[in-house]
């Protein structure tokens, strides 16, 4: 741990703007700035990823690091900042980690096969408002990785379950539903994420407040898929 002094910080500054100031000072002295991931600074791209005083994304609930403001801290506080720590997220440099494992989980099945040009008129598929709202609650995941960083087991269950929930609630997602659950869950293991023992820390850390109910849905789909694996026909027919 290195300690840096951050002077001239106002309460309306965002946390990342505070880091900008620290970096600007370092560079004015010709020193190398602290590397951290960020881009949109609006809580939607999922780039920012800091452990602040031991809490993923810091003290405010439902808030990504970039949306956190210095008014959440007292003047003179010493704040500890660390990268996500998880076996599946190797550190690249300083506060930057490699979250490529998430992309590979999606690759394993986090999609609906709908090649461009093959779609029928959008309004021929009716979906109730409630269903779409619940799907959207899950689809909001920004893949920041806070769930993994917060989990004592380093599990990616909330991330994976949010995608499985989004797609399996929709009629378009049915044909691939069970194969998807099998493949995505298998990929989590391949990537060395830990298992889920329902601590619930992920849900607390999630900047989009995605619920662990999604994990129950994932487990249900996965169980059903494994049970019917012996009778492959069932999985395919659903």
């Amino acid at each position, binding site marked *: 741990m290195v300690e840096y002094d951050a002077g001239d910080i106002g309460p309306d500054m965002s946390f990342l703007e505070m880091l900008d100031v620290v970096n600007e000072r*370092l560079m004015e002295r010709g020193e*190398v700035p602290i590397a951290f991931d960020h881009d949109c600074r609006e809580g939607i791209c999922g*780039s920012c990823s800091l452990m602040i005083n031991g809490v993923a994304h810091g003290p405010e609930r439902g808030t990504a690091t970039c949306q956190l403001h210095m008014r959440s801290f007292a003047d003179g506080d010493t704040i500890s900042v660390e990268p996500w720590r998880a076996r599946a997220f190797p550190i690249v*440099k300083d506060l930057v980690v490699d979250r490529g494992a998430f*992309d590979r989980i999606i690759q*394993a099945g986090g999609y609906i*096969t709908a090649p461009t040009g093959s779609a029928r008129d959008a309004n021929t598929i009716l979906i*109730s408002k409630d269903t779409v709202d619940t799907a*959207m609650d899950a689809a909001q995941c920004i893949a920041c990785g806070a769930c993994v960083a917060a989990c004592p087991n380093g599990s990616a269950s909330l991330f994976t379950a949010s995608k499985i929930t989004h797609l399996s609630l929709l009629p378009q997602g049915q044909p691939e539903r069970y194969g998807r659950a099998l493949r995505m869950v298998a990929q989590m293991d391949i990537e060395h994420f830990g298992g889920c023992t329902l601590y619930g820390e992920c849900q607390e850390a999630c900047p989009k407040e995605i619920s662990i109910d999604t994990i129950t849905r994932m487990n249900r789909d996965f169980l059903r898929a494994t049970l019917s694996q012996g009778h492959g026909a069932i999985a395919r027919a659903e």
Partner: protein
Amino acid sequence: MRPLESRVPSGPIEQKWDKHRFEMKLVNPANKRKYTVLVVGSGLAGASAAATLSELGYNVKCFFFHDSPRRAHSIAAQGGINAAKNYRNDGDSIYRLFYDTVKGGDFRSREANVYRLAQVSVEIIDQCVAQGVPFAREYGGLLANRSFGGAQVSRTFYARGQTGQQLLLGAYQQLEKEIGRGGVTVYPRTEMLDLIVVDGQARGIVTRDTVSGRISSHLGDAVVLGTGGYGNVFYLSTNAKGSNATAIWRAHKRGAAFANPCYTQIHPTCIPVSGEYQSKLTLMSESLRNDGRVWVPRQKGDQRRPEQIPENERDYYLERKYPSFGNLAPRDIASRAAKEACDQGLGVGEGGLGVYLDFADAIKRLGEQTIRERYGNLFQMYQRITDENPFVGPMRIYPAVHYTMGGLWVDYNLMSTIPGLHVIGEANFSDHGANRLGASALMQGLADGYFVLPATIGDYLASSKPGRIDTDHPDVRQAETEVTESTSKLLGIKGKRTVDSFHRELGKIMWDHCGMARNAAGLQRALQLIPELRAEFWSNVNVPGSHAELNQALEKAGRVADFLELGELMCADALHREESCGGHFREEYQTGDGEALRNDELFAYAAAWEYCGANQPERMHREPLGFEYVQLAQRSYK
């Protein structure tokens, strides 16, 4: 430079695209995998193109500087995407979307492209729903719509305030599926730093792996740039921090004409600047203007809290000036009206640079719950940043740089003036003329990526038959060497000022002289200041660290170096265009009541600039714009 040839097919506008699709050459399915297409960018445009090209059978490589394709700036789009579905039966049609877009662009776009965009818009929604994009629905299960500026119909599809996110995730998932199948190879955290042109054809790119610092060349049969807009020239904008012009600017220096660089969109509803340290500006989606009413106090310096100002002492200036569109006047007009009010001393909040966006009436009419459902995340975002609750008092908003209509010039096939170099999404100049309507960028990015480019690129590959080259080719070596040298140069200056301090200074010059209102004297001043600042940059910037590591200061330095050149071209373009149109407002050219005054006789053309060497003025070429279907008229939203 090759002469500008728009290649618009002949025949009636309704039939051009179909006719063209039939006439274009096709690549035999078995031969497609022999062609390699390099796609730079994984936003809506890049991801949809890469996935679709791979589905067609091409061998695709996709490059992006983000760590995952899903983090491209498109993820931040909030409000929605237009399509001429006419699901509301409110008089919409392909023709009306076409008409609204040409008019909204203040008659500075190419009719045939816009018509095609409106045609394709319908298929985009079908495609996205098939992928599982959770668009908002009515209770009966059908898709819901809202209205956006510049239109009197409800044709905008949305997923809460996160439409861009959901559309991008749809394209990203399709891309991941293709990666899994082996059709696409991705190169994350990889920045394109130059274009490789061999025998006049775009054949590859030079990249830097931002983690290891390794410079490499990648070769292919065609290159596609979907690298987004350049609004960050202004330092403060609603764009993501990493958005930049490097890919298109370096392609420009290799021979791709840059069209209408001065057309910048200033979005009327953003959270006002709150201090020196500010690193970016936050958009409050245009969709809020469906229910929010914009006003300022009638009395200068009114210090009362907004709730205490009675109705008759408020000026709902958009409703007053533009009664038929009211709060949904197009962006350029709404922004200028806000500036005008603030210039008159009627602005609210710190520094007087703000106007109110008030939901009190809507909350009374529809109830807090409905408003929460429609805009919940935006209200929350506002409260987080300002520490004020918009359910209680009005929001304070002010215009901010948001989108760039200019970009690399492309023909009807989306090909630039360099054969083989195609440009899609915000990076090209097509479709929006001098002002983009809300919810049309997502539509254009996906139209280009899913439907237009995959059809037109085949024609290029089938007719030009690019031969084999390898990385030993002298032109490839040369490009690589130049990249390595310019990187070392940046690291070697070891001056006194940080990259950001130059960027901030450039941004201020651009905002003051090439922002919401421009005039000849100011632009001339900027044309003097920018080269001076650029010269100082190259002698006094300090880029710490080394080349062979993750070095974010070095990445930024390269981007700012390009902005320092592009900014000058934007000012030159703004100075030459002696008229006002859309986002380009020249104070010398306005009507009696302060509206933009176009000059169709002299300026009904796209200005395509040719790079002529370092510190040399660029040469301008004209693509004349004909208006056969939408009659040229002064735009009126009254």
